[in-house]
C-alpha cells in the first residue's frame, strides 16, 4: 500500500513536494486553506531574475498534481501523534492517518499598517510590494495613480526592525524592489523612481546585474537612508522624509506613489500548529529546524518535515529546491 504523506500548504513548496512524492510512489495529500493553489506566487506577476511569469510557474506546478489528492478550502483542525503515524482532523470533517507530515505553510507578509509612520491604509497612494504585483497582474487598485511622475520604494518595511519584532533581513525584498522599480520605469518612462534602502542585499544569481541595469539603463535613484515619515500633500500626493546618509543631509521628495517593501514573517497558521506537534519556534519567529546547515528540512520530531518559507525567508528557486529535497527525505524516512 502507498504510504500517505500529509502536506500542509498548497503554495509552490507544497505543490512541488506533492508532485515529487507522487513520482516516488507515495500518496501525498495536499491541504490548502484557500481555493486556489500557488499561495503568494499565484498573486505575483513576474519572477526575478529572468522575469518568468509567476502564473506560468503555478500552472506548470499544478499540472504536475494529477493523481494527487488536493483538499482545497480546507485547514488542519488538529493533529496527533500515534505510534508511528499521525492522526489528522481536517476542517471538512475528514480524518486521515498519515505516516509523515510536511509543513509547507510558507510566510505571511508583514502588515505594513503596523509601521504607522508610513501611512499604509491612511494615505491615498501608499501600497505594498504585493499590492503592486497584484495590480500588475491586472487587479484594479484605486491607490494607483494615473500617470505617475514620481514613484518611491521603501526597503525593509518590518524587516531588520527590532521594534516591529523582526530583527531578521527578509532577503528577497531588495531584489523585488529593484525589479519593481525597473518595471515601473518601463511602464512610466517619464517617472522618476527612488529606492530608499538601508543596505542593498542583492545576493543571488544575476541580482547585481539587475542593480547595475537599474542604475545605468533605467536611471533609478538609490538613496541610502530609511524613510522616517510620510505625509500627504493637499493634492493627495505623498511626502517622504529620509536622510541621504551618503550625502549626510536630510532629503524630502513628493511622490505620486509609495511602495512599501513588506518583509516576510512566519505564517501564523504554522505557529498555531507548532504547539500541537511540539515544534520549536526559532528566534526569528519561523519554525526551528534541527539545524540551519544540514538539517533545515527536519523538525527534530519523527515524521515531521519542513519545506520553504516556514523556516525562514526563501526565494522561489530555494523553495522549489527545498520541496524536492524534502520529498526525497520523506521517501527515505518511509523506506527506513
Amino acid at each position, binding site marked *: 500500500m502507498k504510504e500517505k504523506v500529509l502536506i500542509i500548504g498548497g503554495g509552490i513548496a507544497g505543490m512541488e513536494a506533492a508532485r515529487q512524492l507522487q513520482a516516488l510512489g507515495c500518496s501525498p495529500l495536499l491541504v490548502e486553506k484557500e481555493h486556489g493553489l500557488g499561495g503568494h506566487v499565484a498573486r505575483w506577476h513576474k519572477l526575478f531574475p529572468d522575469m518568468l511569469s509567476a502564473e506560468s510557474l503555478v500552472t506548470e506546478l499544478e499540472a504536475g498534481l494529477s493523481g494527487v489528492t488536493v483538499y482545497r478550502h480546507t485547514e488542519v483542525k488538529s493533529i496527533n501523534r500515534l505510534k508511528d503515524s499521525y492522526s489528522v482532523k481536517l476542517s471538512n470533517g475528514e480524518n486521515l492517518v498519515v505516516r509523515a507530515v510536511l509543513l509547507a505553510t510558507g510566510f505571511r507578509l508583514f502588515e505594513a*499598517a503596523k509601521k*504607522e509612520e508610513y501611512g499604509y*491604509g*491612511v*494615505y*491615498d497612494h501608499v501600497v505594498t510590494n504585493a499590492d503592486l504585483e497584484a495590480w500588475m497582474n491586472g487587479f484594479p487598485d484605486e491607490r494607483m495613480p494615473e500617470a505617475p511622475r514620481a514613484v518611491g520604494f521603501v526597503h525593509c518595511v518590518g524587516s531588520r526592525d527590532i521594534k516591529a519584532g523582526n530583527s531578521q533581513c527578509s532577503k528577497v525584498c531588495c531584489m523585488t524592489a529593484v525589479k519593481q522599480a525597473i518595471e515601473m520605469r518601463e511602464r512610466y518612462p517619464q517617472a522618476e523612481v527612488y529606492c530608499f534602502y538601508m543596505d542593498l542585499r542583492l545576493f543571488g544569481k544575476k541580482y547585481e546585474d539587475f542593480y547595475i541595469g537599474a542604475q545605468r539603463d533605467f536611471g533609478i535613484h538609490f538613496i541610502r537612508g530609511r524613510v522616517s515619515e510620510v505625509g500627504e*500633500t*493637499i493634492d493627495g500626493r505623498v*511626502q517622504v522624509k529620509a536622510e541621504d546618509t551618503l550625502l549626510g543631509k536630510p532629503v524630502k521628495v513628493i511622490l505620486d506613489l509609495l511602495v512599501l517593501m513588506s518583509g516576510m514573517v512566519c505564517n501564523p497558521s504554522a505557529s498555531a500548529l507548532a504547539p500541537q506537534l511540539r515544534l520549536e519556534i526559532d528566534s526569528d519567529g519561523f519554525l526551528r529546524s534541527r539545524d540551519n546547515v544540514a538539517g533545515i528540512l527536519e523538525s527534530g520530531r519523527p515524521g515531521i518535515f519542513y519545506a520553504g518559507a516556514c523556516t525562514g525567508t526563501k526565494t522561489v528557486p530555494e523553495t522549489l529546491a527545498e520541496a524536492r529535497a524534502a520529498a526525497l527525505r520523506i521517501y527515505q524516512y518511509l523506506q527506513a
Partner: protein
Amino acid sequence: MIYKGKQKIWSDYQKEIPDDHWFYARSCIRQNFFPASEKYFLEIGRNVLGRDICDTEHHTTCGGIAYHSDVIPQETAMTIVARQFALMTEMGYRNLVASCITSFGNYTEILETWREFPELEARIREHLWKSCRREFEKPEYLAHASDLMYKWRNDIAERAQYRLVNKDTGEPLDIVEHIGCHYSKMFPHKGVGGAEYPCVLSGMVESWGGRIVDYPERRHCCGFGFRQYLVKANRGYSVSNTYKKFESMEPFHPDGIITNCPGCPYFLDRWQYVIAEQTGKTYGRDGFGIPVFTYEELAGLVLGINPWDLGLQLHQTAVEPLLDKMGVAYVPADKYLGLNREDLLRPELPSVLKCF
C-alpha cells in the same frame, strides 16, 4: 486620506480615563501665556459639567522645563513630582490630571522609570521623606487635561452656543491640530490615538463641527524645543521649525490652530509675528495670521464664553478672523479691558502682521 484607516489606529490606542475626581496639577507657564485657560478648564469641568477637580495652591512646578533644559538632574525632578503625588494623596485623590504636556510627559516618564527601576522609586521616597516629611501613593490614573476635554467633547457639543462652522457658508472650519511632543511621542500608548495620528484634539474639533487639516508637517515640533528657544543663539532654529510648519500648512488655508501644550500655542502664535517681520509673510487672509488657541479657549468659545474673558487679547496673532467666521458675539472696544473693566492699555502693533 482614508479616514477609516485612522479610525482603525485610534481604536488601537484608547486610554482609560475615569470620569470624575481628579487632582489638577497646573502648568508653571500657562497662566502667564494663556491666563484664562486653566481657569476655564476648572470652570467647564466643575460648573458646566459638575465634575470634582481639586486645585491646590500648595503644588509647585513639576521641574519639567529645568529637566528638559539640562538644569536639574532627573532625581531632583522626580522628588518634585513625588511631592505633587504626596499632595494628591493627602487630599484624598487617586487620579492626577496635568495641565501641561511636558508635565504629563514628565509624570509618565517618571512612573515608567519607577516601574522599570523600583530601587529608584524607593530612593525618591527616601529623598521626599528627608526633605519634607511627606509620603505618597502613585496615581492610579494619569491624564493630560486635554484627555479629559476629549472625554467631555460631546457634553460640550451638546451645550454649544457656537460651532466650528463658518456662519456665512455653513461649511466646517478647517482646523490644524498640533499635539505637544511630550504628549505621546515618548509613550504612544499613553496618548489618545497614539503618536502618529493622535485623536485627542481632532476628536474635539470634529465633535464641535470643525474639519481637521492633516498637512505633511503635522507631526513636526512647534519649534519651542526647549534649548532651541531658551538659548538665544539657538532661537533661529526654533523659529525655523515653526516656519517649516506654516509653509507646509499654508496651501490648506486653515482657519485656526488648536494645541494642547503650553509651548506650542505660544510659539505658533508669537513666531508668526517674527516670521512676518523677517520675511514679510503672513499666513491668514488679508495680512492676518492663523489664530492659535489652547483647547480650553476653543471649548470656551464653543460654550459661548466672552473671548476677552478667555484671555484672547493676550494672543499676538489676531483671533478676530476666527471669531467672525464662527459668528461669536464680542465687543471690539472691550478687547483691552481687564478685570473690573480696568484699562490694560493698547499694545504696540506690529508693522507687518495685521492685528487689532
